């Protein structure tokens, strides 16, 4: 049984890739990876050796979805009156996407997908999980996974056609 630190070293890139494609933001992805590793550390004693990346994908997805639900419950705070207190703008989408080695239009299209489509698509195409695993992770029927992945890809295509990435 590997330690949580060994898992972090061996699978950190996988965790970060899934987290980054889900969040579309480097800092958010870092926080998701950190929280995921904390859950790995705490859950390792009860983990049954087997499909480790499937387990990790489930954890990182749950961390992301927990955060999404929490943000939905939290009211949006007003901007401060003092301009000095305004947080400076973060790196633009183009810069971030370039740093992640991905054409910006594709990352933008993924970011623009509604979560109900983005999560199954990322779990399938980035985390390389089976429909059955995605079904278990999200608590939805396999048939729903199938239709959401297809619908997500169609929406991505529409966005990419509009952006001129594909014909």
């Amino acid at each position: 049984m590997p330690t949580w630190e060994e898992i972090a070293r061996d699978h950190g890139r996988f965790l970060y890739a899934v987290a980054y494609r889900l969040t579309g933001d480097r800092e958010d992805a870092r926080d998701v990876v950190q929280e995921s590793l904390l859950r790995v550390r705490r859950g390792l004693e009860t983990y049954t050796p087997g499909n480790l990346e499937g387990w990790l994908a489930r954890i990182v997805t749950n961390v992301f979805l927990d955060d999404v639900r929490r943000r939905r419950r939290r009211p949006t705070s007003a901007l401060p009156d003092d301009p000095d207190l305004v947080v400076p703008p973060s790196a633009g989408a183009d810069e971030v996407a370039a740093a992640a080695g991905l054409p910006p239009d594709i990352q933008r299209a993924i970011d623009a997908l509604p979560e109900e489509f983005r999560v199954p698509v990322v779990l399938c195409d980035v985390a390389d999980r089976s429909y059955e695993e995605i079904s278990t992770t999200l608590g939805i029927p396999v048939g729903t996974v199938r239709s959401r992945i297809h619908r997500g890809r169609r929406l991505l295509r529409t966005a990419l056609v509009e952006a001129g990435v594909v014909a």
Partner: protein
Amino acid sequence: MAPDDDAQSVLSAYLDGECRPEERAGIDAHLATSARWQRDLEEVREVRELVRAAAEVDLPPGLLDDVIAAVAAVEVAAPVDAPVAPVADLAVARRSRGRIAAWVAGMAAAAAVGVAVIVPTEPVVNPPVAAVVRTHAVRSSVDGVPTDRLAQSSIRAGFLK
């Protein structure tokens, strides 16, 4: 099958190897005769490959070391079973952990240099009960005043010396 999204959702499953054998045979038969299905299949395949290419992400330098150190710090500051702040409050949790770590470090430093830690205790009061009772008893024996009538006794006590 009509080429709408519901019916065509099998195309993604087909590309992902998620179809049952009999389903795959039906799709193959349909693709053999439908130019629209062939075109749709290629469109979905193209998007699928683009997203799969996104699976490779450059890991920011130092990120793993930083995250491992942060998780290890949480382990030191709190037992494994203790509740942990959720991800949305990680910034708050980090600040809190920093304060705890600073407190722990300060206490350790104090112990190292032999600084005494003063712990407040209840004040101890020792009233001279026996002396007061004895004095009143003497006065009572002289004046015939019961000891439960507690008048000043210091003068008479002094006199009896």
